[in-house]
């Protein structure tokens, strides 16, 4: 479990950071004007989260100081690709933070960063899309990993802006939709697993038997309800509602990731 925990933390934090960057980039470049101070602080937060993710990930190696050797199999290994793309993502976040001044620069650097982030998430998902663990060997892995970017990521940005700018950007429609998709994915995953190989069926059993699974469903449902409520009320929400929302999705996605590893029954 200790070993898997480092992977849980890495994948969760890295995906959240990628999602947060994408969100910040879109707001910054295409939607609303945010103060440079807020942008930089948010970007540094994203970098910090990414750095923590990297440090934690190294600890799951038997030989952390030989981690550089993990770059040697780019041609075949999705793990190598992940290890190449995530630092590239971080590097471009850094460039974006300090060197993107004009809108054109922001667009070029921002899009590059988003692409590297997306490729990172894709690579991570592909590491686990393997026949030896039937529960992972389908599209739900990719969907789950992208949802971790798309749900807690933007809400993190929303929270940061709420704290820094003392105003709440209205994400309610987006959050409601994505939370609904996240809820839906649970149902899809369970039904996919149940119709799969015996090991996948066993995974489905482990999943639904776990109290963590139901806590995850409950927190997602609460997030959906909260965002939906403000959507109907046409209100942006306060710092405390955004904080609540963030707490809910963090718990949901983190538990989801723990479950992902703990219910992955090997052939």
């Amino acid at each position: 479990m200790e070993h898997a925990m480092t992977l849980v933390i890495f994948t969760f934090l890295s995906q959240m950071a990628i999602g947060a960057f994408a969100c910040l980039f879109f707001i910054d470049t295409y939607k609303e004007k945010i103060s440079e101070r807020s942008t930089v602080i948010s970007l540094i937060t994203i970098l910090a989260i990414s750095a923590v993710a990297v440090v934690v990930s190294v600890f799951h190696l038997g030989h952390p100081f030989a981690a550089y050797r993990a770059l040697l199999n780019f041609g075949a290994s999705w793990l190598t690709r992940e290890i190449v793309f995530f630092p590239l993502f971080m590097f471009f976040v850094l460039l974006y933070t300090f060197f993107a001044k004009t809108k054109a620069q922001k667009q070029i650097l921002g899009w590059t960063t988003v692409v590297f982030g997306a490729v990172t998430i894709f690579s991570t998902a592909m590491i686990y899309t393997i026949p030896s663990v039937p529960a992972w060997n389908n599209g739900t892995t990719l969907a789950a990993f992208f949802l971790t970017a798309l749900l807690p990521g933007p809400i993190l940005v929303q929270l940061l802006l709420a704290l820094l700018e003392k105003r709440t950007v209205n994400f309610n429609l987006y959050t409601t939709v994505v939370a609904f998709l996240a809820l839906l994915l649970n149902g899809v995953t369970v039904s996919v697993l149940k119709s799969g190989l015996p090991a996948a069926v066993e995974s489905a059993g482990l999943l639904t038997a776990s109290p963590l699974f139901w806590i995850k469903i409950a927190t997602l449902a609460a997030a959906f309800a909260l965002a939906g409520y403000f959507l109907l009320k046409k209100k942006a929400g306060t710092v405390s509602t955004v904080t609540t929302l963030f707490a809910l999705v963090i718990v949901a996605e983190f538990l989801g990731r723990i479950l992902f590893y703990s219910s992955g029954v090997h052939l």
Partner: protein
Amino acid sequence: MAKKQKRYAFLINLERCIGCNACTVSCKSFYDLHPSINRRFVRETSELLTGTPKRNYISTSCNHCDRPACATACPTGAYIKLDNGIVKHNQDRCIGCRMCATACPYGVPQFDPVKKKMDKCDMCVDRLEAGEQPICVVSCPLEAIAIVDLNEIDESQVVADLPGFADSSITGSSTRFILPKGTTVVRGGIKSWNTL
């Protein structure tokens, strides 16, 4: 004409295997492995493999697959598929990330808690090159393990799949099995049964 390249593979004779684990222990001893590391695994397989219930075992090690999942998963390229069919793990390169263990459908690579690296069977490649048989082959008291050339054997006499053994087509497992023969079972009715 050049001689065709050999494709080495393990051939396990289930009719002979008695599940004794002599292969596991002799290998552990010969290679001075950490006690938690087994390069061979002996498992019970279905009692009903041949119809009537009886004790059946499979002894497997690394299956030296045609499309090794370990090699694809490994970020350091520590696994190489040699021309002779053997999948060799280069421990000097290994960083102990354990992705190979996750990716292998057979759970073959194991984490050595002292070396903090992965460990697996290399079919005693050094011995093979020196013209000797692997340790498990020469140790098995029932001579149930053999090394064969997949180019030479009659595939109709062997199988690649068994209950309790992951689908060989996923990674192209090279291990082949000779199935056990059926045993005629006579079990008398026992009268005292109903009074238990």
